């Protein structure tokens, strides 16, 4: 194969198949993909660093905005770590409500995925249907928490809103509707010929590769690896709930679809259990403003896989370090393995099958020259100075403006 035979097709940063910016360079021979290069980082927002400047409570709302789909995952993972450091006992009712919203979030995330998957293989009807049904759970989340996304439901020490008996009935009613619709999708996935043709044997990832690459979430479970934090290392109230970890031995995109639809059915079961077992009592414990010195890790099973947070406190009201590892980061590495030898046409669905969330994952990687020994940490003022001089070199200078602003401030 000479270079002339290989064409390079860029997928992104702007591409109809991608909902967020990411760049994938496919080396192709005809319709077959021989190699794939991944480039992320278009969405880097420096949230981890920003957390060090804000109080623990403010960080909660900032971290919730890491992801628009699994916002509750990030806030819960963070809050659990902070509660562990501070030694706060969350009242049981608070934990139950936290879990309830977590599972409702899983429903909306998986239904969203189902629609996206349908769109990627040109099956727009599935997109329209599953997103219509997703509205049911979105409305429910809005009724319970006040928001459709970025719920703002968690607080350090518990949750912020209680649930009424009428809302309980509403949730149960909606769960019945959703369960019925999900059964329909499960049946569809088992019968629709073109759907099966496009999903079966696409993006294969063997069990060995899953273990080697440390893949998490439904992607791992679809390759027969029973890996679920809710079961392996129960947090919140998952230890009290009766549910199964859904796995599949298909090892392909079809398996990932079946796992997600199966998980939806388990989630409905869990929602009913949560509501019947819901204990009375307070929904939140009082949390101190200053969190003592200490560090903690927190694991959380987000809809996309294991979400991992690390928090280190230094005794003030601001954390010293917050570290987030979203599930997409580990799963993304498996995509290259899945893609090798595949068709161009299967690329969008293979990528979508890990349910990627680039904004969760994006971080900055600096490649250093080995001979360059000038290596160290920037302090906040040094970082600010670096930013100013960088922009000055580009011809963007705010000296005049800041002087003007300063003088105006003085006058006031």
């Amino acid at each position, binding site marked *: 194969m000479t270079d002339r035979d290989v064409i390079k097709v860029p997928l992104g940063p702007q591409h109809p198949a991608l909902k967020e910016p990411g760049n994938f360079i496919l080396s192709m021979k005809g319709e077959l993909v021989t190699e794939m290069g991944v480039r992320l980082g278009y969405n880097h927002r420096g949230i981890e660093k920003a957390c060090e400047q804000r109080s623990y409570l403010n960080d909660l709302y900032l971290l919730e905005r890491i992801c628009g789909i699994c916002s509750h995952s990030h806030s819960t993972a963070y809050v659990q770590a902070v509660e562990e450091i501070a030694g706060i006992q969350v009242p049981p009712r608070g934990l139950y409500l936290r879990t309830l919203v977590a599972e409702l979030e899983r429903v909306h995330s998986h239904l969203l995925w189902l629609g996206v998957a349908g769109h990627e293989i040109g099956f727009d*009807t599935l997109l*329209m249907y599953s997103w219509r049904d997703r509205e049911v759970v979105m409305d429910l989340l809005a009724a319970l928490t006040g928001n459709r996304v970025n719920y703002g439901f968690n607080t350090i020490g518990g949750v912020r809103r209680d649930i009424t008996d009428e809302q309980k009935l509403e949730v149960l009613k909606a769960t019945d509707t959703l369960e019925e619709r999900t059964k329909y999708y499960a049946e569809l996935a088992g019968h629709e010929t*073109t759907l099966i043709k496009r999903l079966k044997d696409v993006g294969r990832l063997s069990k060995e590769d899953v273990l080697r690459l440390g893949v998490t979430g439904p992607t791992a479970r679809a390759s027969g690896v029973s890996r679920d934090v809710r079961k392996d290392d129960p947090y919140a109230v998952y230890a009290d709930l009766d549910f199964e970890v859904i796995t599949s031995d298909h090892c392909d995109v079809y398996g990932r679809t079946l796992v997600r639809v199966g998980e939806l059915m388990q989630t409905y079961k869990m929602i009913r259990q949560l509501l019947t077992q819901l204990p009375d009592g307070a929904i939140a414990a009082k949390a101190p403003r200053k969190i003592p010195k200490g560090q903690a890790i927190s694991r959380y099973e987000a809809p996309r896989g294991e979400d991992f947070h690390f928090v280190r406190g230094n005794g003030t009201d601001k954390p010293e370090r917050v570290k987030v590892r979203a599930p997409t980061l580990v799963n993304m590495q498996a995509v290259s393995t899945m893609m090798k030898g595949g068709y*161009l046409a299967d690329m969008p669905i293979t990528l979508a099958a890990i349910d990627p969330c680039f904004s969760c994952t994006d971080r900055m990687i600096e490649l250093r020259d080995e001979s360059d020994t000038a290596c160290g940490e920037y302090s906040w003022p040094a970082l600010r100075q670096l930013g100013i001089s960088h922009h000055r070199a580009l011809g963007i200078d705010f000296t005049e403006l800041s002087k003007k602003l300063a003088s105006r401030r003085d006058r006031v």
Partner: protein
Amino acid sequence: MALFYILVFPGFLFLIGFALAGEWLDRKLHALMQNRIGPPWFQPLADIIKLSAKEDTVPNGADRTIFKLMPMLALTATVVAVLYVPLWSKNALNSFPGDLIVVLYLLTIPTLTFFLGGWFSRSIYSLIGAARALTQLFAYEIPLLLSVLAPAMLANSWSISEISAFYAQRWYLTPVNIIGFVVAMVALLGKLERVPFDIPEAETEIVAGSFTEYSGRLLGLFRLCVDVEMIVGASLIAAIFLPFGLGAPAWLAFILYLVKVEGLIFLISFMRTIMARLRIDQMVDFCWKILAPVAFVQLVLNLVLKGVVQ
């Protein structure tokens, strides 16, 4: 009078109007089946007007002449094809022995223009789309030809008007061609690049395939061409496989014709509602391993039947 026939009714103007109405019907039905509201009736026309008001851009490095010529050639070919297809009477506007082949040939031209237009756009997505369009052409064209060949054999004519007239007189022979009808419908989906065969313009893979670099009037012409192609294709299938009510009074035959074409459009939207897009290798496999043999069965059946009838 001939000029009126060609330019106004049932020629160019009527055809464009009907094509836009057909596109609206397709989109509306598709939307309703998908639980959406769908566009208002004037949406396709509004789209064309909007597109024609926009600037035409030709990408750097593209062949200007071919890039600009292809949309016009595509529309011309499809509009000319309608002259040889009997719409609601037994006779087409123009007819000669062998016009069946000419119509099929004219309907192939748009696909070739998609290929050339995409190929000379010099965009990577257009290149892949163009290659796919041509690959797909080789897959569906043979089954389509075979499926219309079988009724022609039985009618002993190469003229669409004569075939239509033959079956209109012997309506009991029409159900014989049911296999050919199904094959022709599936092949038409491939020709129109509709789901499950919208592989050359698969949005999530190659943006818009051959049309990626097209904009403004040129894109409008291509869109119009696809709409007209749908009407001409549906009319051709209606003329050969559903030749009912051709002898009725003109107004009734006209309404019957509209009903037939709209029924076929409904079938097309239904198919694209219930299916996912196939991969190009699956599409070629399907056309050669299933569709073409099935079309052959129809051919053999009609040959045997012809022997029996005579």
